[in-house]
Structures are given as C-alpha cells and as structure tokens.
C-alpha cells in the first residue's frame, strides 16, 4: 500500500517536473504581458514620458474610454462586424465544403484553389481590393460603367464602406472555415449516409440530419476561432478606410491604435485592450461551452 502511494507520488512529481518548463514559458509569454497590460491600464503611462513618471489613476482610463462616443461606436462596429462576418463565413464555408466533397472529380484542385485567398496576407488583400475598387482606375467600377450600372465610391461613402470591408473579410476567411469543416466531413462514417438513404432521406435531409450533427464540435471550434480573429480586425480597416467615413468602419483595434499607440498613451490604450479581451472572452466562451458539451 505504502509502495503504491510512493509510486504515485513519484509519478506525480515527475509529471510536475515535465510540465514546469511549459508552464514557465507560457507564464512568461502570455501571463506577463497580460498582467503588465492590466497594471498599466490603471495608470496614465505615456511611453515618451517614461514608466517612472506614470501615476496610478485607478479606474479613470476605463471610465474615460467607456464614456468616449468614438470607442462606443467602434465597439458596436466591431460586434456587428464580427457577428455578420462569422455568420456568413460559417455559412459559405459549410456550403463550400459540402459542395466540394460532393464532387466526383477535381476535389484536390478545387481544394487548392479555394484555399488561395486565405494564404494571402491581410495587407496584400487590402491593397489589392483598394486597387480593384478604386473609384478612379478600379476594375470593378469600370465593369459597372461598361454595363451601365451605377458606380460607387466604395471606401469613402458611409453607405458602402462597412459592407465593402465585410465582403473582403468574408472572401478571405471562408477558406479557413471550409478547410476545417471539409477535414471534419471526411471523418463522418459513410454508413450513416447509407442508413439515411435507406430511410428515404434526400440530399438536403442527409446533410441536415447526418452532416451537421457530426460537424457540431468542429462548427463550434471554427466559430470560436473566427470570432477571436475577427474581433482583432485591423489591417484591412487601417489600410482601406482608416476607420472612416465618419467612423462607420472604426473598430476597437483601430480606435486603440489611433488613441493609444499613435499618441503613445499606453495606459489609456491598455484599458481599451483589457475591455476588448473581456469582450472576446465573453463571445468565445459561448462557443467554448458548446464545444465542450
């Protein structure tokens, strides 16, 4: 009995020793910056003036940022953008996965082609679309003009700017959702489809009662990853609109960049970053719960 206990303790000690390096690295790389961000968020730290001149100002940064109309608008834009982008990315990603899996030939080529947008850096995508949607020399407006259709000032008009960026983001990230769901689909046993067919289920019912239930955990994971990523949307907005016109495309990260990073008010920026982290945690926890269940 004592020997078994000793063995257990030794094994426990060995396990602790093995995971200690990982825990230390994680603590240094993840917790340390997070804790410092949290500490700075309670100060008036300005980078140029130095950390030694930073004063503790309790919740002033949080009060100020939450009272700021631009921040509230940026928060609303971010949430709206995230909900719409993730919804459409999931929908199109799923449809694309079902479509490509149903192909009898050319699956490999299609897989590769579909993935291409996701492989491009966000900056490249933004610059490409800026050229294509340029009001002056952009191919999109030239085609619309040739077809006698109305043309738009895509990124400078408040009626089109938000949706233009949304479409670009969806275009780029649908492949990610497709890839995850397609891989997951390949592991669904064929006999489930055969059983459904025997029961008289058509194409739509097969996917509704077999494919989607099997993809549940993958869908939840995918949605969570996309929510986290979309919440941090920055490059496309910064390059294409700079948050304009009239703040209609400003996001939390864009706000933090303009008001925290550019002005070097790291205390204020840190408070915004903490608020954003909390929001992401709230949103993603919904999906985590779903995934765990």
């Amino acid at each position: 009995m004592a020997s078994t206990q000793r063995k257990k303790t030794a094994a426990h000690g060995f396990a602790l020793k093995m995971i200690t390096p990982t825990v230390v690295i994680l603590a240094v790389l993840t917790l340390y910056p997070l804790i410092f961000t949290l500490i700075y968020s309670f100060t008036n730290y300005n980078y140029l003036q130095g950390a030694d001149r930073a004063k503790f100002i309790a919740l002033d940064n949080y009060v100020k940022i939450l009272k700021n109309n631009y921040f509230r608008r940026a928060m609303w834009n971010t949430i709206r953008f995230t909900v719409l982008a993730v919804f459409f990315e999931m929908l199109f990603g799923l449809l694309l996965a079902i479509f490509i899996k149903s192909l009898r030939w050319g699956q490999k080529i299609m897989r590769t082609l579909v993935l291409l947008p996701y492989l491009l850096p966000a900056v490249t995508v933004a610059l490409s679309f800026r050229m294509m949607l340029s009001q002056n020399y952009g191919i999109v407006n030239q085609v619309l003009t040739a077809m006698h259709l109305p043309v738009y000032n895509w990124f400078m008009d408040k009626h089109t700017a938000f949706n233009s960026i949304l479409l670009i983001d969806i275009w780029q990230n649908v492949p990610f959702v497709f890839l995850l769901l397609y891989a997951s689909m390949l592991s669904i046993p064929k006999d489930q489809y055969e059983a459904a067919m025997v029961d008289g289920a058509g194409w739509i019912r097969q996917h509704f009662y077999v494919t989607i239930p099997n993809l549940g955990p993958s869908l939840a994971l995918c949605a969570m990853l996309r929510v986290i990523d979309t919440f941090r949307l920055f490059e496309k907005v910064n390059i294409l609109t700079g948050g304009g016109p009239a703040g209609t495309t400003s996001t939390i990260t864009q706000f933090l960049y303009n008001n925290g990073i550019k002005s070097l008010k790291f205390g204020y920026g840190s408070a915004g970053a903490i608020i954003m982290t909390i929001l992401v945690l709230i949103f993603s926890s919904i999906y985590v719960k779903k995934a765990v269940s």
Partner: protein
Amino acid sequence: MKKKVVAATLLGAAMAMTVASVSFAGDKLTLVLRGGSYADSMQPAIDQFAKDNDVEIEVLPLEFDDLHSKIALDAANKEGAYDLCMVDGSWMAEFTQNNVLANLSELGYSFDDDIIPATTAICKNGDDIYLAPYFGNVTVLLYNKQLVEDAGYKPEDIDSFADLKDIAQKTHDAGKNGFLIRGGSGDNIVSDFIPHLLAYGGWVVDDNNQPTVDTDEFKAAFTEYQDLFALGDTMDKDDIVAAIDNGDAALAIGWPGWYVPTEDSNGGYIPIPTKATDDGEEYKTSMYGTWTIGIPANSTHKDLALKLLEYVMSPEVQLASVENGGVPCRYSCLQNEDVLAKYPQYEAVCKALENGVYRPVISQWAQFTEILGTEMDGVLQGGDMNDGLASAQEQLTELMSE
C-alpha cells in the same frame, strides 16, 4: 611660460588634425525616413555618401504613423537604433518636450542664408536648432490644365476660392468632378480643409492653443468646403492624383510630394488662392508639411550622422535631389533657371514655402485631428454642421485641458 604656450598650441593643432582626419570607415548608420518620394529623393545622396566615406547605411522607409511610433519607441532606449530620422513638423512639440532629438546647434550645425527662412521656424526650439528642413512639402492647388482652360481660366488668373468654385461648377456641369476633397483619416481631412479655413481668416486654435472650431469663420469655410464637395467627390491621395492627371477632376488641394509634373504633364500645381472672394481680405493659406531631418539624442554615431545631414542639406545635393522628386527648401534650387524650365511648378512651391502656416505646435495634434476630422467627416456624410462642430469643440476643449 613660452614653452607651455608652444606645447599647448602644438597639442591643440595635433588634436585638430586628428579630428579633421577622423575616419568613419566601416561604421554603420541606420536611417529611418518617410517612405515614398521623400526617402527616394535622398537615396542617391545616401549611396554616394556611403561610397565616399566607406560606411554602410541602412535605410528604413516607413509610413507616416509607423515612422512616428518607431522614433518615439526607440527614444526610450539608452543607445538608439537610429542615427538620422525624418520628422514631421507636427511632432516637434512632443519630441522636444521629451528630449527625443539631439541639439544640432550644440553639434555645430547652423543654417545658411540660402535656406528659405520661414521653413526653419519649426526646426528650432528657442535659438537651438534640432532639425533641418529637407523636403519642402507645403499645400498647393493641383489642377488639370485642360479642364481649367475649358472653364475659361488661366492658372495665373485663379486668385480666390470663388474662382475655384466657379471652375468646379463649370467642370461639374460638363460631367466631370469639379473639386476633390481628401478622405480617410481625421488628419487627412483636417489637413485638406485647413487652406480653406485660412482663406476665411479662421484657425483651429487661439493664441492659448484652445480650440476654435465652432466659430463663424470655421462655419463659413466649412460651408464653402461642402459646396465644393457637392461639385466633386472624396478620394484618397492616389486617386486624387490619378483623377487630376487623367482629366477626371479639375481641382484639389495637394502636396508636392504626391506628384511631380513636368512641363508636358496634364496636371500641375499653383499656389493656393489667398482670399475667399475676389474682393476679400488676403491671408496666408498654404500649410507647411515640411519633412525635416534630425539626429536622435540617443544615436551612437552622432558625428557621422551630422556629416551626412550636412551633406544631404548642401545646395549641390539638394539641387540634384530635384531630379528624384525632391523639393528643396533652398532659393538656389527653387529659383534655378534649369529647374524651372523643366519643373515650372517649383515657382509656386517657392512662394508657398515663403508664406506658409505651420500646424499648431501642440503635443496633442494627432488626437486633435482625429477628433476634428471624424466630426467633419460626419458632417460631410450628411450630419448637421452645428451639432458636429459643437461636439468637436467640446471634445477638443476637454483634450486640451488634459
């Protein structure tokens, strides 16, 4: 005693000779510059300097905001990563308050009479020089030659904002964009609008740096700005230049760094009109956006950096930079007959550089433009002007009280 004097003289002479023959061979300088034509115009001189002095020079061309962040972030280090940096005039207050830049006067640098005096004002703090005006960026009026002619004007006849409106109206009636305004970030919008505001006798702050954006002058200028917007469109700078050059638009406010037309180009630029109406009062309406160069206080190669700074600021190098899109702040370059024969617009640039207005020297300028630009953009997109400007005034007052 005589022996001591002779010895001291000999020692001094030996030291002077040593200093004069200091070799920088093998040293490395790192330059952080504003990307685009600003850095491009300096590149040949940098290459030549590196060759002549047997040194290595690394150039980092950056975007506006990135450049500001990089310089500021490096300023906290004891030994800086950069030896020479390009600085926008609007950063001067923030940088001098926080000892980011080396005092060039103490290093032995001084201005000569050839440099346009007005361009050096932003480079000094008191009598001390911290920066040198490298690239004479100043707002000018971009125009399409054909469309202005079609509207019945010669460039030299455009002397009021009423003329601009007339040309814009006629161009708009002909199915083209009469006047383009710059969209995007708050800073873009404010910079684009300031010449209009100046023509109406307004300004964004008072003598105590308190905001003055909810005034009659501001509203009059903004109303005129909205009228011009209705006769054209809003675009980013690349589209503005393309539209002017390809004849899709007649007029826009721009910067020499955006566009280097030649005698044969479709577009060109002239000084911005100095009055709102033909019989109105005249004001200085060109706003400086001069790109200056300085040496970070924590540079580890100040002597070599100063030598490079003096080299790129020399009249010969500045004159040569014109062929690479440079806009010197020197009379000898901007009034050079050969230069004017090929690039006639430099006459306009010279006038604008002599009579420009600096943006307020306040450390909050980046946030100031962000707030004002966003509110102005809201008005341009259909919002109420009185509400927008009142909101901007309130927020800016709070900002300036911090």
